[in-house]
């Protein structure tokens, strides 16, 4: 017989023993031994157990040759149900001392009636409470047993299945249970060992296992902490991703193969003003303003096409319409259309700005066109006027020719001095008028026609200047014109046109000069590329006239004011330049530069 069995056969008064066990057979054997010893000693016995255990204990007692029914009938053995007895003193989740004392005290007194010695009791109400997940009540009940032990003399055996304490957190409660008992008997794996040596080995093994388990627990706790941290990190990442998706600048949604919206982010619903229920679960076409557009979009997506910036109009809850660009493709799984991945970009403001820009561009274009039309109209008018002047000038030549011929004819007749003088004036006037008509026609050719055509031939500027001097001096014998030339004055120019230029410049110089000094013509032909002609007199061009000297129609009633304009155009047609400088001290100088070819 083991020490534990010997001890349980003869427990002392007020012993409060706890037996841990691993299997039911061991418990039945232990309790059977404990009760059988009590019956043999004539002690009152109380068993408070579950129906299954009561049956097992009864069987064990009968196997030992005890007539259980007779013992019960004699009142020595009381068999009580654990749950029913608990119900008599539990208040809420906890045992109540007064009720416990009354209920258990009554049972003890009843068992004791007419018998000597201690009461021997076995109880598993604490085990029931423990199994029910109420360890606090179990420990409190153990304390109540200790308290009632001070009132009634009895020895009590409790039993706990080791399966109650397999969790690491049960350590503290296990300790409490040990504390509340006067004797602790280990479970059968230890109790059954006979020799001290075997028990020492078992203790050593248990110590090693305990340490290994503690280490394992620590390792697992660290692992659990790491997992928990990783899980937290993942939750945070998921929350960030969710925030990103929900609040993205783009509206996002999924549409299934039937066109039903399966998911949409917050941005998209806010853009259109719908709640989740008003949007998700509905057909996407309900929100498109143009039915043919969504039909086309779904057709393309079903054909596995990817859409980029596909323009559409979506209907908002408030009845307004938003212009959007849709980019989308389909998420396929095992060849099955799962849902679209649709990005919606609101371009309403951009569209409005574009429309406004287009409108203002159209207005601008219209006003430009109007302005252009007006300008063309004005140009046509100017052109018409210039052409009219040209035609008029041309047509004036015939009557002018007739007048000139008539005047010359009169001059030839011997018709008296008065007729002669008059005829001279007519001739002079027709010459002036002829020059004016020539200028008008030149002007028309420059402005309306192809410009001044040149008939280039090899000529010398010095010769031309000599001819001009002769003409001027013939007309104005009182005026002197001085020509100087250095270098070669030869070049390929239009002689008639350059004669026109020189006659104009020298004629002006004579007309506007003082007459005290000669008009000078200096030809500088020393350069290889150019010949420069400088015409100078002592007259002064008024400063306000100087900047506009070459502009047409600056003339007075007597002159058209085209002479210098045409002169400049002839020089430009030759690829040359003409400049003027005029001061009171230096007089007036025209400088003409002509490329030799």
């Amino acid at each position, binding site marked *: 017989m083991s020490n534990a069995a010997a001890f349980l056969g003869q427990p002392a008064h007020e012993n409060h023993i706890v037996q841990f066990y691993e299997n039911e057979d061991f418990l039945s054997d232990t309790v059977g031994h404990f009760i059988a010893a009590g019956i043999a000693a004539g002690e009152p016995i109380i068993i408070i157990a579950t129906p299954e255990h009561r049956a097992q204990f009864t069987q064990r007692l009968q196997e030992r040759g005890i007539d259980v029914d007779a013992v019960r009938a004699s009142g020595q053995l009381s068999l009580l149900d654990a749950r029913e007895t608990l119900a008599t003193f539990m208040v809420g989740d906890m045992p109540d001392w007064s009720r416990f004392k009354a209920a258990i005290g009554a049972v003890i007194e009843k068992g004791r009636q007419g018998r000597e010695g201690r009461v021997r009791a076995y109880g598993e109400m604490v085990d029931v409470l423990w199994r029910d997940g109420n360890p606090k009540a179990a420990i409190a009940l153990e304390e109540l047993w200790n308290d009632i032990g001070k009132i009634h003399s009895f020895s009590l055996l409790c039993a706990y299945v080791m399966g109650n304490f397999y969790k690491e957190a049960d350590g503290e409660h296990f300790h409490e249970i040990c504390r509340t008992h006067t004797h602790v008997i280990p479970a059968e794996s230890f109790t059954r060992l006979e020799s001290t040596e075997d028990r020492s080995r078992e203790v050593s093994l248990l110590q090693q296992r305990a340490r290994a388990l503690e280490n394992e627990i620590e390792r697992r706790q660290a692992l659990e902490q790491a997992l928990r941290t990783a899980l937290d990190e993942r939750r945070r990442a998921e929350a960030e991703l969710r925030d990103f998706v929900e609040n993205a600048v783009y509206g996002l949604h999924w549409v299934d193969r039937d066109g039903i919206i399966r998911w949409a982010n917050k941005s998209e619903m806010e853009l259109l003003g719908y709640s989740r229920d008003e949007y998700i679960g509905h057909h996407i076409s309900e929100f498109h303003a143009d039915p043919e557009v969504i039909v086309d979009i779904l057709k393309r997506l079903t054909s596995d096409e990817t859409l980029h910036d596909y323009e559409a109009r979506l209907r908002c809850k408030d009845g307004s319409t938003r212009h959007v660009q849709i980019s989308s493709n389909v998420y396929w799984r095992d060849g099955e259309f799962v849902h679209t991945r649709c990005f919606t970009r609101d371009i309403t403001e951009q569209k409005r700005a574009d429309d406004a820009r287009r409108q203002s561009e159209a207005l601008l274009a219209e006003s430009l066109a109007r302005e252009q039309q007006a300008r063309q109209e004005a140009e046509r008018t100017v052109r018409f006027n210039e052409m009219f002047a040209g035609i008029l000038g*041309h*047509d004036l*030549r*015939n*009557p*002018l*020719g*007739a*007048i*000139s*011929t*008539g005047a*010359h*004819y009169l001059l*030839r007749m011997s018709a008296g001095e008065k007729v002669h003088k008059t005829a001279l004036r007519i001739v002079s006037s*027709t010459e002036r008028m*002829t020059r004016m008509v*020539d200028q008008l*026609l*030149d002007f028309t050719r420059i402005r309306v026609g192809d410009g001044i*055509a040149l*008939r280039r031939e090899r000529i010398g500027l010095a010769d031309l200047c000599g001819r001009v001097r002769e003409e001027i001096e013939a007309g104005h014998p009182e005026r002197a014109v001085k020509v100087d030339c250095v270098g070669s004055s030869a070049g390929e120019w239009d002689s008639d046109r350059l004669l026109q230029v020189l006659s104009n410049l020298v004629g002006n110089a004579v007309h506007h000069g003082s007459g005290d000094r000669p008009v000078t013509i200096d030809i500088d032909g020393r350069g290889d590329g150019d010949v420069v002609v400088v015409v100078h007199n002592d007259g002064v061009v008024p400063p306000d006239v100087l900047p506009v000297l070459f502009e047409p129609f600056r003339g007075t009633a007597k002159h058209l004011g085209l002479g210098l304009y045409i002169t400049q155009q002839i020089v430009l047609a030759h690829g040359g330049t003409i400049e003027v400088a005029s001061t009171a001290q230096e007089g007036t100088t025209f400088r003409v530069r002509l490329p030799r070819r």
Partner: protein
Amino acid sequence: VSNRPLVLLVEDFEDARELAAEYLRDSGFEVATAGDGAEAIARAAELAPALIILDLVLPIVDGWEAIRRLREDSQTRLIPIIVTSGNKSDDDRRRCAELGCVGYLQKPCPPATLVAKIREALHD
């Protein structure tokens, strides 16, 4: 038969035509006149003048067409032609030279210049 050369003066502007005709007669020429191109061609064929003074801008048949027809007709193709024109055009001047005209005078032309040109042409 006069030994004064016969000049056919073709000009549609009557005043100019008649004054010029008078001046030329006074300068020693026989003068016949025509007021349009068709008449000019007919009179040239009829009269065989020593020289024709021809305006370019004429009614019915213009000066250019008249020159072409005069040059085609064997009777008239050798008659010297002096062209008078209101256009100061180098192209016209060049074209007239190419068609064999002996002179190109721009209107209004001093009558003395015209007379000098006629004499120069007849002496050549």
